[in-house]
């Protein structure tokens, strides 16, 4: 069980994500977008979307720093385990409810506004529910967790990334964290099948592009 979920399953998810993204990008490039419903129900979108996106981006970077950088490295720059615990805990205590509230507003408007509901596909609801669930299990650790879980989980994640999985590390982390990790990887697997593909379309090239772009109809004309 432990071997499957923390040794095999993450790779299944990552493979589904990578292959799925590639197939979707090549196969149906026209459906690769954020599926905005800004046209319907603007006010509720503005509140929910800004609250959710800004906090979830901070949470994402928090995970990157906390999990991908080894403890020794953070120690070396003067970021001790206890400070780390404190910063991550307090940030999580603030951000987890923000994500929950933001998504709650988005879910509520999606279900209560008939126009938004008509333009909703089941996957839109699934991703919202999953991310809310993530905020709950992640928030549980921040509010009630007693051990610095990022130390074993971080080590495990780094093992996964360098293709040397150590599932036994995960054996002793709290159940809430285990659920958080498993559902997290499920979200990775969901990306190609949902609107979440817009992660990969953050318009950074915009800043390098000239304002008025011209394109040729036929390249060799």
């Amino acid at each position, binding site marked *: 069980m432990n071997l499957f979920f923390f040794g095999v399953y993450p790779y299944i998810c990552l493979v589904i994500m990578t292959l799925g993204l590639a197939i979707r990008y090549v196969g149906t*490039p026209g459906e690769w977008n*954020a599926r*905005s419903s800004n046209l319907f129900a603007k006010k509720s979108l503005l509140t929910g979307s800004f609250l959710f996106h800004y906090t979830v981006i901070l949470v994402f970077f928090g995970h990157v720093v906390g999990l991908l950088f080894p403890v020794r490295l953070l120690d070396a720059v003067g970021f001790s385990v206890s400070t780390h615990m404190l910063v991550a805990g307090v940030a999580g205590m603030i951000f987890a409810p923000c994500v929950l509230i933001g998504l709650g507003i988005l879910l509520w408007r999606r279900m209560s506004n008939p126009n938004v509901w008509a333009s909703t596909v089941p996957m839109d609801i699934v991703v919202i529910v999953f991310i809310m669930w993530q905020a709950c299990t992640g928030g549980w650790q921040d509010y009630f967790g007693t051990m610095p879980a990022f130390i074993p989980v971080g080590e495990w994640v780094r093992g996964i990334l360098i293709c040397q999985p150590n599932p036994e590390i995960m054996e002793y982390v709290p159940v809430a964290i285990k659920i958080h990790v498993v559902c997290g990887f499920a979200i990775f697997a969901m990306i190609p099948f949902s609107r979440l593909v817009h992660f990969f379309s953050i318009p950074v090239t915009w800043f390098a592009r000239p304002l008025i772009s011209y394109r040729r109809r*036929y390249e060799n004309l």
Partner: protein
Amino acid sequence: MKIKAQMAMVMNLDKCLACHTCSIPCKNAWTTPAGAEYIWFNNVETKPGIGYPKRWEDQKIWRGGWKLEEGEPKLRSGGKIDRFLKIFGNPILPSIEDYYEPWNYNYKYLTDAPAQKRQPAVGPRSAITGEHMKVEWGPNWEDDLAGANVTGLEDVNFREMQAKAWLQFKTVFMFHLPRICEHCLHPACVASCPSGALYKREEDGIVLADQTRCRSWRMCMSACPYKKVYLNWKTHRSEKCIFCYPRIEAGHPTLCAQTCPGRIRYVGLMLYDADKVKEAASAPSAMDVYDSQLSVFMNPHDPDVLAKASEDGVPDQFLEAAKKSPIYKLVSEWKVALPLHPEFRTLPMVWYVPPLSPLVSGGVTSGDQLDNMRIPVKYLANLLAAGDEKPVRAALSRLLAMRAFMRSQRFAENAALDETGTKSAGQDDFAADLWGSPSAPASDADIAALETVGLSPETARAMYRMLAIARFDERFVVPSSRREFADNVDKLKGEIGYPEALS
């Protein structure tokens, strides 16, 4: 200098009677799929009125187009960094209520209803949800001034005017404004697109939204001051008028232009200097933008211009078409067509001949005839010249002078025919009229009248021929594109296009 070709259109508002024939083939060809019901690449509005979406011209609300900041044109909707940080929600996006909630009727019920006491009736049902709904707005809600006494008060073209007074029954005026995408030289929608999906075609300047690169960021909808970029609510992609490019490439005019029964539309090429576009958009005052845009256009009869254009890659058949372009005549030579809201600084390429209107009752004989027209010049100036009455007066005077001249010609011809006895008065020599050929010499008084507005008898006859006769091959001069370089269309058939349309 870099000369490019641009497909352009002129609409003669003097002849538009809002039959909406243009909108129908456009709708049928391009925007019937689910999700596109509310999208009208072409719609016809009645002025005064606030149009579709509501108050689209009011950039205090929608912040479309460009503004001048330290001599540079900047997007009114916000710069890249500002927009990037607000990418999660667009506060200046019109809502579906501002366009209108599309609706349909269950016509089947009319024939399938069981026998009952009363006639079966059907109510409107939302095309989005399928539920019963109240119809509250539409692409031409203010048709023939319907409700304009209320909505007209918010029409920004009444700037510096007493809107209330002009909307009284005795003074009210009306004309129609068909609108498509302006295919601007300095398009705000293109500049605002984070993912680079919107682009201007190098060959003919048509502005297109790449359906495979649109990521649903919806900045274009806000940036376009004409609100002619739409979001398909089902595919969540931007769609906009494509200037019927498949037809244009084959040498045909757009559907809206070809089907117009009033022959109000002209389609042709303009040559312009792409390097001067930004400078033109940066004209110091809003009223200068019209002149600065004119200065960007190049004379297709100048051999140097043609040589340079050829060098810059404009194909020969495009140059031939540019020489015969009705747009160049109406816009640059005769200056009877004017841009729609030049103050938006997008340098639009769909221009309008301002409408003449009847003189107000009371038999006014003194003063400028233009000031006694039912449609106030100031209103037209606010619509077509950033409030500057000069170009509007010039255009209207030329149209009036042309009319007076042709009428005088007609009488002279008839008088001449009476004398010779071959035909009686009233039996016009229609053929002579049709070709605008001088069958009677112009009198000195006629020539003098034309000269006051800067026209010669030949020009007046050419204008008459273009505006009143408006032959098909003279209103539409569309070169076909170089198909020898085209993709293998037979191979592509059934493979590309909107996936929704194929299934």
